C-alpha cells in the first residue's frame, strides 16, 4: 500500500470557522486526512469535536471555510447532494452504537445497506460476512442480548457495510470497559489499512488517541498537532 502521505487527501477541511449565538466554536481550522490513514481529534468536552463531525457529515453548515471529501466541496452541496454524499462516502460509529436492540446483528447491519439502496441479498450477505470478520455471533439473537463489545463491533460493521471511503467515529469506546475497549480500538484502527479508508476519530481517551497515525488537539477553537 502506498504511503498515505504521498496521496491526495480524502478529507480536506480548509479554514473552517463556526460559531453559535453565544460562542465561537472554531476559527480557521484546517485538517487533511488521507485514505489508509487514521487521525484522532482530542480535546476536553465542550470544545466542539462533535460539532466538527456534524460539519463533516453535512448536518451542520459552517460559517466560513470549505470541506472537501473525495475532491467535492460538501459545504456548497444541496440537501439532496448531501444525502447522496452521506450514503456513498461516509460511515459513522457512535459512542453508544445506536443500534436497534430488537433487531438481530445481521439485520442491524443490513438495514444500513438496504436504506442506502443495496439489494436485499447483497445487503444480508455483506452483513454476515462483515460480522463474521469482526467476530460477532450471527443468528437471530436480538442485539440487546449481545455484550457491549459485540454491540460496538456490530456498529462498526454497520458503518462499513456501504464501503465508505471516510469513516467517522465519535467516542467509539466511550461506553466500554477497558478490555472491550482495547479489542474494539484494535479493530477500528486496523480499518484504514484493511479497508483503505480514511478514519477520523473524536475522543478524549488518551489510550485511544495513541493508536492513531496522527493526533490533533482541539483547544480554544484551534487545532494543535501533537503528532506529525
Amino acid at each position, binding site marked *: 500500500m502506498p504511503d498515505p502521505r504521498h496521496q491526495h487527501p480524502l478529507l480536506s477541511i480548509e479554514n473552517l470557522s463556526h460559531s453559535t449565538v453565544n460562542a465561537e466554536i472554531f476559527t480557521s481550522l484546517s485538517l487533511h486526512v488521507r485514505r489508509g490513514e487514521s487521525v484522532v481529534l482530542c480535546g476536553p468536552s465542550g470544545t466542539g*469535536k462533535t460539532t466538527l463531525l456534524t460539519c463533516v*457529515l453535512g448536518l*451542520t453548515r459552517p460559517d466560513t471555510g470549505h470541506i472537501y471529501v473525495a475532491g467535492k466541496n460538501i459545504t456548497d452541496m444541496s440537501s439532496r447532494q448531501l444525502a447522496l454524499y452521506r450514503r456513498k462516502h461516509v460511515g459513522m460509529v457512535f459512542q453508544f452504537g445506536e443500534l436497534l436492540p430488537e*433487531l438481530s446483528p445481521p439485520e442491524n447491519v443490513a438495514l444500513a445497506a*438496504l*436504506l442506502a439502496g443495496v439489494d436485499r441479498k447483497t445487503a444480508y450477505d455483506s452483513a454476515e460476512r462483515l460480522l463474521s470478520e469482526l467476530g460477532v455471533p450471527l443468528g437471530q439473537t436480538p442485539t440487546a442480548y449481545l455484550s457491549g463489545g459485540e454491540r460496538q463491533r456490530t456498529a462498526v460493521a454497520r458503518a462499513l457495510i456501504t464501503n465508505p471511503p471516510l469513516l467517522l467515529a465519535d467516542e467509539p469506546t466511550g461506553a466500554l470497559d477497558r478490555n472491550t475497549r482495547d479489542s474494539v480500538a484494535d479493530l477500528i484502527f486496523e480499518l484504514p489499512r484493511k479497508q483503505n479508508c480514511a478514519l477520523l476519530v473524536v475522543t478524549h481517551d488518551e489510550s485511544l488517541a495513541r493508536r492513531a497515525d496522527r493526533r490533533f488537539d482541539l483547544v480554544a477553537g484551534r487545532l494543535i498537532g501533537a503528532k506529525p
Partner: protein
Amino acid sequence: MSRQRLWWHLLRLGLAAGRNSPGGRLRFAALTVAATTMTLVFMSVLTVVATYDGWDKRDLARGAEMARGKRPVVASYKWTRDSVGNVPHQVVHVEPRSSTVAPPPGLPRWPGPGEAFLSPELLRAGAGEGIRDRYGVFAGIIQDDGLANSAERLAYVRPKVDDRRDWFGVTRIGSARSALMGDSRNRVPIGQFIATISITLGGAAMVLLIIAARCGSTVRDRRTRLLTALGGGYRHRALVNLGEALIPSSVGTVLGCVPYFVMTIWNVRLPITGFTTNSADLRSWAWAAPTAAVSAFALALLVVVTIHRDTGSTQGTQPRTFEGAIPRWRSVVGAIGLIAIVVTPYLSKVMSFLAYVGGTALLWGMLPSTAGLVIRRLGTSLANFGVRTGRSDTLIAGRWAHARPGVVVRLVSVVVIGLGVITQAQVWSSRLGESGQNAQRAHQELRDSVLIVVPQSMTPLRVDRFTGLLPKEAELLMVNTPDTPEGTTEIRGSCSTVRKLNLKCSPGPLAQDKGDVRARFLNQYVSYVGKTELREGSVLAAAKTSDRIAVILPLGSDGFSGQVKQAAYQSFGMAFVERPYDSWLLGTDNLATMATWVRLFTVLMMGILLLAVVTSSAGEFLTFTTAVAPLAVLTERRRFVMGIALWNLSAPTVIAVGFGTAVAAWQGTFFIAMTSAGTFSWTLLGTSALVALGLAGVIGLAGGLGAVQATAQWRPAAD
C-alpha cells in the same frame, strides 16, 4: 437568588423545556387535547345545570294550577296525547275564561277558536304528516320561553267545541302546584344526569389527561431525578412541570370553552339524541363558565404536577426493550368466556343472563393478552416478510411489535372493546318489554290500517262530514262502549265494510275471530274485559249512540293517520285518534330517548378513550423512533419512519377494526337472537367502524409525522 426570582426562573425553565424537549410538540398537542376534553366535560356539566335551571323556570312559568274550592277559574285545559310517526307529543287544549288572563308563556296571544300554536320541533318533525293544519288554523310557533327545551314537541290548541266535559278549570298559569307537561314528564333527575357525565365522560377525560401528562415521560422523569439530585424539592419540581404544562393547558382550556360560548349564541342540536340546547339558558349561566374553565384548568395542572412526583426509582420509568412473556392461561380464560356466550341459549333464563354477562367480561378482559400473543406472532411474520423482501419498514415494525406488543395491544384492545361496548349499549337499550314487543309486532302487521277516533262530541252530521274528508279507501265502524266495563261493546258497520274484514255479512252477531288481523285487533282493543259484538248496521244511524269510530283502511296501509287526524279535528272540533297498539308503542318512547343518550355517552366515552390510546401510542412510538434517527439521518431516508408507523400502528388497528367489527356484529346479533328482543343497528356499527378506521390512519400519520420531525432534528451529541 431570591425566592420570587427562583419561582419565576423555574417556571420559565419549564416553559423552555416544553418547547425544546424531544417529542415536545406531541406532548403539547396531547396536553392541549386533554385539557380541551376536560374543559368540555366541565362545560357539559354547566350546560346540564343551565338547561335544567332554565327548564325548571319555564316549567314553573307554564304550569297550570287546577282550580280547587272557590278560587276563580281563568281558563280551561285539557291535555291529550298525539303522535308524529311513533314519537308521542302532548296537545294542550285551552280555552281562556277571563279577558285579563295572560296566555301561556311562549304564545303572543291566546289562540282563537279553531287555532293552534305549535312548537318548532313539532312543526319540523310533522311536516310530512301535515301537522301544521292538523288541529285547525296554524296561528304561529311557540317561542322558546314556553318550551321545556327547544326540541320539545308541543301544541296549544283552542278547539271549536261547545262540549267541554272532562276539561279542567285552571286558576293560575305560572304555578309550581301544577302537573308536569310535555317533555318534563320524562325528564331524568339532574343528579343522575351529572353523575352519568362525570363517570363516563369525566372518567375517560381523566384517563386521557393522565396519559397526556405521561406522554414523553422519559425526558421528564430524567429531569425530575436531576432536579432532585440538585437538591430541588417537590415545590421546585412542581414549578418546572407547571411551566411546561402551562401553555398547552391554557390553550386547551380556551378551546374547551368555545362550544359553550357558541351555544350561548345559537341553539345547537346534539347529535344522536336530537336534543337542542337553549342559548338563553346558557347565557344566564355564562357567569359560571370562567369558574368551570378555571376548575378544569386547575385539575389539568394538578394532574401534571401530581403524576410527576419523584418516585426514587428508575425502574418503572425506563423503557424496556422486551416485554415479558404473556401467560397462556389468559387466552384459555378468554376462550372459556367465548364458550360461555355460545352456550347461553341452552341454559335457563337466569343462568343464560349470567353466562352472557360473565362470558362477555371474560372475553373482553382477556382480549389484551390474546391480542398480545397474536400481535407477537404477526410481528414475527411481518419482520420475516421484511427480511425476505428487503423492506426496512416492515422489518423494524415487525421486530418492535414482537418485542413490545403493549403499544399495539392497548390500541387494538380499545378498538375491539370499544366497538363491542358501543354495540352492546345499542342492543341492550333497544330491548323492549313484552308489551312493547307485541306493540312492535302489531305495528308491523297493521301500520295505519285500523285507527280509533274518539271525538269530543259526535252527531250524524259531523260523522257524515268526517266521512267526506277521509281517504276514499277508508271504511267506518261505529263503536258503542257500554256503561260498565263488563258490558258488551257493540260495533256496527255496513256489509261492504264487514266483508272487507273477510267476514260474512249476516243479521246476527258476526264471528270476528274468523276475520282478518284487523278484525281480531279491533275485537281485542275496543273492550278490555267485556264481550264485543260486531253487527251489520247503518253507520249514520249508529252515530247517535256511539262514542268511538274505527276507521278501517286496506291492510298494511301506511301514512294515513295524519289525514285521518286532521279530518277528525275538522269534523268534531276536537278528537283523540290512535292506533290500537299506540298506548304500548308510544310508551316505549321514554326508553327510546334514554337509549339515544346512552348511545351518545358511549360513543363520546369511547371516542375519548380512543384518543387517549392514540396519544399514548404516538408518544411511545416516538420513543422507539429515536433509535432509528441516527441511521435515518446518515442514510438520508427520514421518511421510512413513516412506513414504520403505518405498519406498526395503523396496520394492526385496521386488522383490529375488522376483527372487532366481526366480533361486535356476531355478539350483537347473537344477543338479539337469544333474547328475541331489540334491534341491531348496522348503521351504528358501520359508522363506528369507519371512525375507528379513520383513527387508524390518524394514529399512523401522527406517530409517523412526529417521528419524521424528531428524526429531522436529530444530531450526534456528545454525552
